[in-house]
């Protein structure tokens, strides 16, 4: 028997596998295909104060080993998420869930976190300061230590739940931003969000994405994610949720060796609807292969 249980801020997960925000909706799309209660947890679709349609289409462009998306935080707004989406989600998922919150101002983050704080099923609030798809929005908070710390402090003041700050990789010094969040009271760090990317259609000689640029994700970004998780683990004492291109049980182990306590799976869900299920089912085999009996033993293992 192997132990796959890990703990994030006092919340024990059956395994470290968590579908990443924006690739799993509110869970019920996937619940049609398998029992999603096998997941460690999941991070639901990024939520803002106002309803958002998001960016014009095309929002998707293929890349080698990944895709660029510029969905632009399409969501029904915090009120409807709470009144319509969460009740539906509760029917198919019975574990603590991660609420992903985005905003265009500190006030907006505060507003949404205050609301979501009252939801019993929310175990962790994941504050996205890094979505690269909204103009004058999330990006600026995630790219400076001061702004990231300001959001962290403001959000921590209005919630009793653990707050994890989701960081952008599009920065020069990820460790300093993570450190600033920790000092401002963050309970954990999630990283990485997508890398800014762009494709140009040779037939039209125009950007492939209507919004010109978007967030690049998929297996191609895995080495960048591992590097940044490694750097952040060195810089902070709070737990790290690692993500970016994870698509196999081996990737989960690698991310944990870099310093992740839990691991999110994003783009892989879109091309392989059973990606998380497959990874969870494969974990014990791969752990055995590498002589691992307890996943907790390998967190940050590459630093020793």
């Amino acid at each position, binding site marked *: 028997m192997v132990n796959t249980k890990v703990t994030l801020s006092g919340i024990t997960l059956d395994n470290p596998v968590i579908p990443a925000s924006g690739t799993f909706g509110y869970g019920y799309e996937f619940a049609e295909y398998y029992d999603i209660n096998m997941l460690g947890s999941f991070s639901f679709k990024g939520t803002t104060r106002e309803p958002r349609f998001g960016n014009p289409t095309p929002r998707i462009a293929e890349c080698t080993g990944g895709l660029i998306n510029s969905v632009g935080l*399409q969501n029904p707004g915090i009120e409807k998420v709470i009144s319509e989406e969460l009740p539906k989600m509760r029917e198919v998922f019975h574990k603590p869930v991660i609420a992903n919150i985005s905003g265009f101002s500190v006030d907006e983050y505060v507003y949404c976190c205050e609301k979501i704080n009252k939801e019993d099923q929310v175990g962790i609030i994941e504050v996205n300061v890094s979505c690269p798809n909204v103009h004058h929005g999330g990006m600026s908070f995630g790219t400076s230590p001061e702004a990231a710390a300001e959001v962290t402090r403001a959000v921590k003041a209005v919630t009793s739940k653990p707050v994890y700050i989701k960081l952008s990789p599009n920065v020069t010094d990820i460790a300093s931003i993570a450190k600033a969040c920790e000092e401002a009271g963050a309970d954990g760090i999630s990283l990485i969000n997508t890398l800014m990317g762009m494709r140009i259609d040779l037939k039209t000689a125009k950007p492939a994405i209507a919004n010109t640029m978007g967030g690049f994700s998929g297996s191609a970004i895995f080495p960048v994610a591992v590097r940044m998780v490694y750097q952040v683990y060195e810089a902070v004492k709070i737990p790290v949720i690692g993500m970016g291109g994870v698509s196999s049980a081996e990737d989960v182990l690698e991310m944990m060796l870099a310093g992740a306590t839990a691991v999110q799976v994003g783009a892989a869900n*879109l091309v392989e*609807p059973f990606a998380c299920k497959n990874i969870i089912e494969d974990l014990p085999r791969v752990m055995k292969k590498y002589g691992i009996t307890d996943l907790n033993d390998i967190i940050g293992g590459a630093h020793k």
Partner: protein
Amino acid sequence: MKQSLFTIRKNESLTSTVFRMVLEGETSAVTGAGQFLNIKLDGLFLRRPLSICDYDENTITILYKVVGKGTEVMSEMAPSVSLDILTGLGNGYDTTKSGDRPLLIGGGVGVPPMYRLAKNLINEGKKPIVILGFNTKDEAFYVEEFESLGVEVIVATADGTLGTKGFVTDIVKSLSNYTYFYTCGPEPMLKALSDCTTTSGQLSFEERMGCGFGACMGCSCETKYGNKRICKDGPVLEKEEIIW
């Protein structure tokens, strides 16, 4: 939705760029005309969404045009190759609203889903009129297949090398005895049909997709009935709900 392995049984060219592929596998998730498949291809990250032309208990037929890397790879595949495919995607056409004499209008690569739809309507005792539009005779395909269903088939080519010279809309404008319409094709054609038809109808849309099963919001569009995902709430939308 169902994920399963299919084996290519046939992969043949119909024109210089359009191919027919017959896939053998588990087809129980396919519930109607107008749905699509999402095919995983080695070396390409995203699956390729392709409309279903016809299906039975153990095969699915697709007609596809080589337009990019994915379809190019597909066109070179030999029979017996196996493919990881998601089936049962999309809402498909609702035949209950058709009336006795619906128009089925396919333009170019929008022709394939009309084939199964015509079969279904015939089975329901209706008398569809099929209008197929192509640029030129050399690009036309499936005209005989439609004719052999025993329905009225009208072909329009832009250059007049086959059938009537002109667009499908020219033909639609000349007809008055139809009860409803169903269409699939390039968006300018869909818009023109929405404008020139005198009845209600259903139009199938194309959009760049991430997942194809409703998770990523990559293919969202705004409609009069709220935001919809082309892959899950579509690809078929009703004329009345579309915001052009």
